[in-house]
């Protein structure tokens, strides 16, 4: 009989950098668990059986969560082994846990369905996943585990091209390399990483972590070609000639902009431009770095997703007052709860039920205010399940010398404009079948390029699924040949 133990209803908290300290810099906000705290939190897990555990089903890549927590507990006297075995369990489904542990919306996934959530706080799965990955990285356990895998890889003849080095592409490349394929990743920018690099700020995802993941790809023998804009430098039809299969993971990189007067005034940035200048080009270190950023005293961020929170908290750190303006209500915001809470703690203000209808400029063409239409909420729901909103007719004008637009992105048109026969749906998303194959045989696609705009974990899930589908496709083709 199992020993009776007391149920711990509350989470073991993770230490965070104090607000006054963090808003001065770009260091990571959440400091994560150490082994002892992680173990205490893992102890709270009820260890639901694998075939039942709701968290596994709630995870887009079905990580065996009770399984990796059990490993931590099983080897509690040997942290090194505990982490190594836990990492092995995670890696079976997810090769980038340091990243997903930080950026996944766990409250809508694994943690949202955790049984413990019914009686207290759900298990802090995200932070535990992150702990395993961080501890492994700091103690080079991940390299060791990888070196166990690498010699066992049976090299294959076939070559696969991956287009875009973001979360979907990197995952797909890693999985294919583990299966023995020769993988080349083509990246348009000067560094690989995609949105992990240009989009998500340092204080949420330190770039050192992304670099560590890229180092692993190198160990797996993946070749990454930067400065290659597929569609321009080389086209998909040309890749098909040279490679046995192609995976398109070009994301959703084109910013949506509201079609209202004054959108081209100076001081109005797309979130992409703002974040790229700061994250990728390090404009916050100008003039040590050459790319500048201009930020006023009052910034309005339009939108309420993760990108909006990232932009708002970045602007705040650069010394601006920040208001997030959203056309819907507080409960409709799409960002992760943790990001919203951090933004609030750090002093970001919020305006709800306002929609921009005009940007007002001064004589030099610089933005000085935003005119909003006040919205009101109806009881009906729209096709996305969100409460419908309509204009009230009443307007409000708010001063701002910087405006950041974060209302979403659509896929870049370069790919489909240069790929005859590639079927494209609404908003330029690539159409795929259930195996993620596009209308062109041997060409697969995943991530935001097929979804429009989703999360890092869904993109990674696609990358993994596509790798499997590509493997099946090539194996079948080999047999028929």
């Amino acid at each position, binding site marked *: 009989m199992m020993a009776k133990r007391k149920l711990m209803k509350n989470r073991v908290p993770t230490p965070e950098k104090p607000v006054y300290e963090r808003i001065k810099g770009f260091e990571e906000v959440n400091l994560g668990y150490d082994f002892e705290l992680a173990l205490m939190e893992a102890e709270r897990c009820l260890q639901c059986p694998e075939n039942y555990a709701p968290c596994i089903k709630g995870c887009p890549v079905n990580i065996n969560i009770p399984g990796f927590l059990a490993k931590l507990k099983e080897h509690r006297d040997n942290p090194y082994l505990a982490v190594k075995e836990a990492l092995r369990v995670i890696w079976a489904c997810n090769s980038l846990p340091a990243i997903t542990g930080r950026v996944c919306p766990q409250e809508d996934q694994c943690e949202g369905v955790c049984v413990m959530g019914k009686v207290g706080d759900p298990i802090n799965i995200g932070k535990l996943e992150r702990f395993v990955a961080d501890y492994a990285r700091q103690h080079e356990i991940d390299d060791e585990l990888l070196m166990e895998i690498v010699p066992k890889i049976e090299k294959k003849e076939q070559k696969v091209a991956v287009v875009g080095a973001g979360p979907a592409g990197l995952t797909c490349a890693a999985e294919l390399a583990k299966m023995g394929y020769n993988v080349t990743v083509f990246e*348009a*920018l*000067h560094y690989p990483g995609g949105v992990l690099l*240009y989009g998500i700020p340092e204080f949420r995802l330190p770039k050192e972590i992304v670099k560590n993941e890229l180092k692993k790809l190198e160990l797996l023998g993946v070749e990454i*070609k*930067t*400065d*290659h*804009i597929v569609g*321009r*430098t*080389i086209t998909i039809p040309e890749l098909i000639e040279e490679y046995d299969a192609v995976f398109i993971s070009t994301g959703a*990189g*084109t*910013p949506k*902009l509201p*079609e209202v007067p004054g*959108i*081209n005034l*100076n*001081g109005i*940035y*797309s979130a*992409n*431009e703002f974040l*790229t*200048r700061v994250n990728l*080009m*390090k404009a916050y*270190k*100008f*003039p*040590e*770095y*050459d*790319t*500048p950023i*201009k930020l006023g005293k009052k910034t309005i961020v339009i939108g309420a997703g993760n990108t909006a929170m990232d932009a708002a908290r970045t602007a705040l750190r650069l010394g601006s007052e920040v208001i997030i303006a959203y056309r819907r209500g507080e409960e409709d915001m799409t960002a992760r709860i943790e990001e919203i809470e951090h933004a609030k703690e750090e002093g970001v203000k919020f305006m709800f039920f306002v929609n921009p209808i005009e940007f007002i400029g001064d004589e*030099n*063409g*610089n933005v000085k205010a935003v005119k909003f239409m006040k919205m009101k909420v109806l009881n009906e729901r729209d096709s996305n399940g969100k409460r419908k909103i309509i204009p009230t007719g009443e307007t409000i004008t708010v001063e701002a010398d910087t405006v950041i637009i974060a209302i979403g992105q659509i896929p*870049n*048109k*370069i790919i489909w404009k240069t790929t005859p026969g590639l079927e494209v749906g609404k908003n330029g998303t690539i159409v795929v079948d259930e195996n993620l194959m596009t209308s062109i045989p041997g060409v697969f696609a995943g991530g935001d390029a097929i979804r429009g705009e989703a999360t890092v974990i869904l993109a990674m899930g696609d990358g993994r699924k596509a790798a499997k589908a590509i493997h099946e496709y090539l194996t079948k083709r080999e047999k028929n040949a």
Partner: protein
Amino acid sequence: MYKILERKEIAMRNVWFKVYAPHVVKKLQPGQFVIVRAFENGERIPLTPVMWDKEEGWMGLVVFTRGKTTMQINTELKEGDYFLNIAGPLGNPAPMKKYGKILAIGLYTGIVEVFPIAKAWQEIGNEVHTLQVTFEPMIILKDELEKAVSKHTAVGVPIDPEKSFPENMKNVTAKAREVVRDMIKEINPDLVFMVGPVGDQKAIFEVVREFNVPMLVDLHPIMVDGTGMCGACRVTVGGKVRFACVDGPTFNAYEVDFDELIKRSSYYRDLEMRAMQEYMQKLQGGAQ
């Protein structure tokens, strides 16, 4: 890493780099540009290759010293050195049609971008007249253009050392307007094409419009990624928001909102000046 096979100062503030970048050159067409990042802490800047050899895999870039980055490139990069990144080709190729008689104008180093397009237009059967207006010591590509097109004119405006640089630039604009007016009367072109600073593009467009001649301009607003991702380069053309990097760079001059673009192009001027001054101080400090 892209090796510099040759470096040569071809005129005041104009440096020619022959760079090995076969992946870009393979696809390059007249009118397209590349994004260059030269240094580890450097910015991404758009440059238009002036000529290239697909077989040998090199392209020629003429870098004009106009800010910190271009000054650093022209000062520090030597033959045998490398550009860190060259991505491209970007933008749409120039429209290759038979227009008839074309007047293609490049102000200052704008002639670099005119060169491959003018040459290609001539080759497909147009009668191309090219014009460079710049300061006297900055005339470039004269011999090359004389060989490549029906007629090339280079006009050098003397630099008045008593006057400030912006004052001197006004003389170039005035001279260019005068010469363009005369040439339109003389040639009676079917198309005018122009590359140069956006303020000058507007000034020349005003002259061309008097004659009601169709006019194309290549626009080069501030860019960050150059691939359609950031929207820094947005311009209003025909009342619509367009991205110069993916929708351009060539647009119908009659539809471009030049005033807006002039303002957008000057937004970072103070920071650009600051970066350049700090770099110049560093250079002077290093020389002591």
